[in-house]
């Protein structure tokens, strides 16, 4: 966290909406506000975790960062270069610096391509290496993620889930990106395999200095791997804090609920825990409650919460929280 480090990612007031803008024959007219004005910086070799319930906009934000989804407003800069509004050529250049790992390794690999072809694809289409060199590079990448070069000729179905996720990581690393967006990279994996992948991600960061935006809802994983935590609720950030601060002293009521809901893998701790179970469910992002979006489920909610939307405000310990009552 030295001062002069450049940010690999800068998000400024990013908003992503779905639907609504259709013309004459447009769709239903309902606007889904998946992401609503978020700001975030990620430094080099930093891991930032993004947590939140299903449907709160985590994947949408991830897709926006890599340029798979256009925001309606705001700016996304990767290593200083603007993604929003970039043309195809430019976007392709920028994408060398940011890659993505998806949740389900089974769906992230083309079942009809050998993994060698899959890993080599970014190198081929960008004309970086060819022929024998390509083969070597693919072998290298496979070794890097703990597979063997001779695996290059196999098809995804010949691998286990954990191995497939390694292949996905190898492909993401092929272009030596500065930033890896990991959209729930381990939640589809078995417990024992999960550990392997987490170890791998940590090792790669230490070796290559790559930064991660790590999307997850498993707080124990988050605590293990990240430097900073961002909590998202209905398209907005409600709490941003360094890991230690975050886990020692969660401030937003939603964060606290989340923490108490995640079961600890220890019956003594788990059963002794003070439970704080949220009632109700996540409102639809097509119909976000007024004021603080969390007020419908918040045990601390008062009148002001339904009227005024709280801004992210810094706290003495460095955390920033969006709550009237925290």
């Amino acid at each position, binding site marked *: 966290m030295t001062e002069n480090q450049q940010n690999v990612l800068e998000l400024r007031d990013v908003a992503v909406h779905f639907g609504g803008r259709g013309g004459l024959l447009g769709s239903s007219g309902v606007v889904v506000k998946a992401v609503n004005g978020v700001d975030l910086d990620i430094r080099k070799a930093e891991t930032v975790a993004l947590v939140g319930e299903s449907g709160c906009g985590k994947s949408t934000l991830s897709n926006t960062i890599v340029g798979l989804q256009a925001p309606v407003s705001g700016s996304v800069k990767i290593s200083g270069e603007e993604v929003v509004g970039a043309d195809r050529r430019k976007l392709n250049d920028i*994408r060398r610096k940011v890659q993505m790992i998806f949740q*389900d390794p089974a769906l992230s690999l*083309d079942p*009809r*391509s050998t993994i060698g072809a899959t890993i080599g694809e*970014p190198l081929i289409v960008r004309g970086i290496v060819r022929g024998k060199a390509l083969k070597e590079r693919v072998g290298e990448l496979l070794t890097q993620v703990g597979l063997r070069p001779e695996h290059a000729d196999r098809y995804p179905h010949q691998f286990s889930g954990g191995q497939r996720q390694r292949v996905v990581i190898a*492909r993401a690393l092929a272009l030596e990106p500065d930033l890896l967006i990991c959209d729930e990279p381990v939640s589809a994996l078995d417990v024992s395999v999960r550990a392997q992948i987490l170890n791998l991600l940590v090792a790669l960061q230490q070796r290559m200095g790559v930064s991660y935006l790590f999307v997850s809802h498993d707080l124990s994983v988050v605590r293990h791997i990240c430097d900073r935590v961002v909590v998202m609720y209905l398209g907005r950030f409600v709490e941003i804090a360094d890991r230690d601060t975050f886990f020692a002293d969660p401030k937003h009521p939603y964060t606290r609920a989340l923490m108490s809901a995640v079961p600890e893998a220890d019956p003594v701790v788990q059963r002794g825990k003070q439970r704080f179970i949220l009632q109700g469910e996540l409102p639809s992002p097509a119909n976000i409650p007024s004021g603080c979006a969390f007020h419908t489920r918040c045990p601390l909610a008062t009148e002001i919460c339904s009227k005024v939307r709280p801004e992210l405000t810094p706290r003495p310990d460095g955390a920033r929280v969006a709550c009237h009552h925290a």
Partner: protein
Amino acid sequence: MSVIASAHAVRQRLRRVPLSVIVVSILLSVIILLAIFAPFFAPADPNNQTLLARLKPPGFSYRGITYWLGTDDLGRDLISRTLYGARISLGVAVLSVVVSTLVGVSLGMLAGWFRGWTETIIMRLVDIMMSIPAILLAVLTVAVLGPGFLKLVLVLGLTRWPRYTRVAYAQTLQVSNLPFIKASELAGAGAVRILFHHVLPNIAGPILIVATAEFGLMILMESGLSFLGLGIQPPSASWGSIMSVGRQYLERAWWIVAVPGVCLFLLVFSVNVLGDWLRDQLDPRSRSR
């Protein structure tokens, strides 16, 4: 170990192939081989007429030639005609399926990938084509293009493509949302590469199923056109044209329809059984793991 394991897997998979599928595949191969090597198997020139030996029953001999499956209304050997007819029927069916697949799938993928205007135009065109009955369109087009093998293929191909477009379109929509396609995009692959390297192989299954269903239909369409006198040009014959001649002689010479009829049944049967099996294979639920 991996070699052993894969050999084992192959054996396992083969063991799971039902007997009917094996029988049917052999049957199909035999029909295809007979068609390809018709000149070797055919006992006589399929176009050689012997007017004095017309409409003779199976086993009839005339001037030292035995017509094992009888003769048609011009005294031509029915086995030979059926064998050569197989070439035409299969040829028309295969080629027209290929043509309609090429056209239909390309358009379907384009519509599904680019969406927007491309999608609107292509899919409305599909609607339009689908609402003109295929046989009428075929008759009209034959009238314009004229008859002949290649034109027939073209006509059938150009009237049937919308079916493939629909499937390819729906499948492309589905596949293009999968993470591996997004990953390719992130890798920097262009539309053409993604469509041909990633989308096409992954939508091939459902398209193959449509193609097997269409295959039999193409043979029927060709015979329908033959019946209307717009099919293959005489003296060449397809199974359809042999049957459409033979139907006049149901009472006098049943064998003329029976021989190609049985062949057609076996062919369509085989293709259907294979198609259904293929479908079940491609269904992820029926695959273990």
